């Protein structure tokens, strides 16, 4: 029996099998026991009853990406499971467990050389009043992962409290039946015990973390139009904002949502909306207005497969172009990208702070992978960034809303401030806000809006820069975690590499990037985009060393640490 630092599990089932719930319970139990973890899901095209798989990784260290191969694959049933294809792979070290009554595992799971076993999940469940096969499967998984049944009981009792004692008893019995059924399995991997916890563990999704970051950063108004995979941000914020003294308004569409938050912000309330690619496309015109009129808003884009309606339930990194270049005219603005579930909280909070401070829209490029993943993490540190808009209350003399100041930020007079009356303007304007077509005034405002962003001190938060070596892995967003893991693995094989992942994508930071890349001989750019949008962005704005390798691929499959490591070894 060897202690391993991390184990991965896939639970597959369909039509009411409860595979996802089983995965959620395991993650919750792991978190309560002190392990860290990440859980994602993959689904068929149906709204209910479809084939579904809960994908889990539990470890003694932070988990920010999913594995190449799953150590344990349990099929409550295998209906349509071949649809998951290359997303759920098993290798020679893997264990695949199914119910002989519920068919055979798909060839892709059998062909990798995994050990395939059968446990009569359905029969065992039938023998328990109120028993369900997924509880048996839960017991099997829990035993193989090294949990004590009581650690699972605690989670079940909380979840089923509403359903009553008999439901809880049935689940407890099911779990123990699963334990017994798995007791003969010779499984040589055991999760190393979790390190002692300092502080609390949190269990939350990237979307929830985003919502919390927004409220912490000072957001008190949100306009909502649902779109997959961003809806959960708005659904979490709806009651939470009210608790914080704010308001959420449901909009009739994204055009209304973006204009509503600009309106609320004009009145002085830090405001936010959340959407995905198709919604961001609709919001672009108004984001230009926000830029030109210097009214801050935060727009979360939880990126999904594109183009057009695309693959709504899968992740991609293909809204980079529209986020940075989408507005007509020259309209520099803030674009940020979190790098993990935990970072969704920090980045959204920081984005809110920056938007308010610099009076600019901030687009936060999250993605479906982080947004809908659930992570067991240590409680994120409190961060001091709270939106503080430069507001002017005492007006002496004539007020110039768009006054050219030293740092480019013009104090805003909120409606209700005597003497501060002005008309916010999308038309090119003078310092007073009066429309103009004067070349001098136009350039003055363009300079001001550019300089206020370029001149701000973003500190170290602009990017993750880690490690040492001639080779630099340059990536962004959710791939950062996989890159970090790849670099750690490559170090084990004698390759030293640096990780550089910008969190601030716009404005660009040429000096800071130069410092991060100093001495680099080779760069490996990794991104989830068919047209390599990040590569082209880097080329446009930054000096790169001569040897550039690009590993870019469209969604829907996530890019794994193993693939990045292979790319690192290939080029050398």
């Amino acid at each position, binding site marked *: 029996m060897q202690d391993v630092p991390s184990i991965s599990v896939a639970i597959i089932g369909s039509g009411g099998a409860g595979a996802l719930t089983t995965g959620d319970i395991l993650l919750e139990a792991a978190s309560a026991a002190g392990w860290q973890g990440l859980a994602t899901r993959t689904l068929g*095209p*149906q*709204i*209910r*009853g479809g084939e579904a798989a809960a994908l889990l990784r539990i470890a003694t260290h932070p988990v920010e990406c999913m594995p190449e191969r799953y150590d344990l694959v349990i099929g409550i049933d295998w209906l349509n499971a071949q649809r998951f294809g290359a997303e759920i792979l098993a290798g020679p070290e893997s264990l695949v467990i199914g119910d002989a009554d519920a068919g055979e595992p798909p060839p892709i799971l059998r062909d990798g050389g995994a050990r395939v076993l059968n446990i009569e999940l359905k029969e065992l469940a039938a023998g328990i009043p109120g028993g369900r096969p997924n509880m048996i499967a839960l017991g099997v998984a829990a035993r193989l992962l090294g949990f004590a049944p009581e650690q699972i009981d605690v989670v079940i009792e909380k979840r089923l409290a509403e359903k009553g004692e008999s439901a809880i008893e049935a689940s407890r019995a099911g779990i123990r039946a699963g334990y017994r059924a798995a007791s003969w399995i010779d499984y040589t991997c055991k999760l190393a015990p979790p390190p002692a916890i300092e502080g609390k563990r949190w269990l939350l999704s990237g979307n929830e973390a985003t919502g919390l970051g927004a409220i912490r950063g000072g957001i008190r108004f949100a306009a*909502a*139009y*649902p*779109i*997959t995979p961003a*809806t959960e941000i*708005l*659904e979490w914020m*709806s*009651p939470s904002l009210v608790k914080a003294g704010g308001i*959420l308004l*449901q909009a*009739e*569409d*994204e055009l209304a949502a973006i204009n509503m938050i600009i309106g609320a912000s004009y009145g002085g309330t830090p405001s936010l909306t959340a959407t995905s690619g*198709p919604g961001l496309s609709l919001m672009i015109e108004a984001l230009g207005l926000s830029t030109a009129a210097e009214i801050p808003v935060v727009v979360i884009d939880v990126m999904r497969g594109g183009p*057009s*309606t695309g693959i709504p339930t899968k992740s991609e990194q293909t809204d980079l172009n529209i986020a940075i270049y989408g507005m007509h005219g020259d309209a520099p603005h803030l674009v940020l990208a979190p790098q993990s579930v935990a970072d969704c909280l920090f980045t959204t909070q920081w984005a809110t702070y920056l938007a308010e401070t610099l009076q600019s829209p901030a687009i936060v490029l999250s993605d479906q992978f982080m947004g809908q993943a659930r992570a067991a993490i240590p409680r994120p540190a409190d961060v001091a960034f709270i939106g503080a808009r430069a507001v002017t209350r005492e007006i002496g003399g004539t007020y110039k809303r768009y006054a050219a100041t030293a740092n480019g930020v013009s104090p805003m007079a909120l409606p209700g401030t005597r003497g501060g009356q002005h008309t916010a303007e999308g038309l090119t304007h003078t310092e007073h806000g009066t429309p103009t077509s004067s070349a001098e005034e136009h350039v003055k405002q363009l300079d001001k809006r550019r300089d206020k962003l370029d001149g701000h001190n973003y500190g170290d938060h602009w990017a993750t820069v880690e490690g040492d070596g001639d080779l630099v892995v340059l990536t962004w967003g959710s791939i950062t975690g996989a890159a970090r893991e790849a670099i750690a693995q490559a170090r084990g094989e004698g390759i030293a590499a640096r990780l550089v992942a910008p969190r601030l994508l716009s404005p660009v930071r040429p000096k800071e990037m130069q410092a991060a890349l100093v001495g680099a001989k080779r760069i490996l750019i990794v991104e989830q985009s068919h047209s390599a949008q990040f590569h082209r962005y880097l080329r446009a704005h930054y000096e790169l060393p001569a040897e550039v390798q690009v590993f870019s691929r469209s969604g829907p499959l996530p890019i794994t640490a193993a693939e990045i490591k292979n790319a690192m070894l290939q080029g050398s």
Partner: protein
Amino acid sequence: MQCPAPVYKQADFKSDVKPIWCPGCGDYHVLLSFTRAFAQLKLAPEEIAVISGIGCSSRIPAYTNCYGFHGVHGRSLALAAGLKVTRPDLTVVVASGDGDGYSIGGNHFLHACRRNIDMTYVVMDNHIYGMTKGQPSPTTEPEFDTALSPGGTGVRPFHPLVVALASGANFIARCFSGNPNETANVLAEAIRHPGFSFVEILSPCVTFRPDESKWKEQVHAAPVAATTDPGKAARRLMTDDGFNLGILYRGDRKPFQPASGASGYDLAQLERDFEQ
């Protein structure tokens, strides 16, 4: 010798694509009504274009054997307008839901009624946003509790039939998915009627509105025959209970169809206008 035109049966209008709608969804009945109506009208599948936006109801084009367009959210009426004025030979049917059609599509709804291009607009209304997991739609009751609007929106629902009448729709009807043959008859008449025909079909959502299973007891035939008087129609629709079924208004506006095609104009004249 001319071959006789083929006669298409209901089954000929259905494609092989298996719908992803939840079993129990009213839209399965609506699909039957569509295919029955097309067969009744003795149309050919290739002469029909089914245009949709985004949402559960908007999946319907691929389930028919007609030409289809699964467009972006809320813009199906605009797509259809462009298609119909340039291809008046086609029978254009637009499919939408209460979210796609009355929320993001609201503006286009007003103008489509106003423009009165000859097409049929079918909105499958289930009083909820189904595809995105159950948020309130413009026709959801103000007290209906959801995650996005806990305790209900507190906002009065939209009255689409009144809006349609006020904006100029030329044919207004309401159906219930659970009466598929009746619905098919109304659809056939709507398609035959010139100008913009609007048919709202109450189509329960089995997953997010299981309470709508009681709709089959609440719907009832309209107590009076359809009127051609917009004033009378306005009064009836303003006091309508939302479950009144049947053809409620038949207008006589002339459909909007710009003339096009060969005009005999010599294009070279366009250039001569610039000559000095």
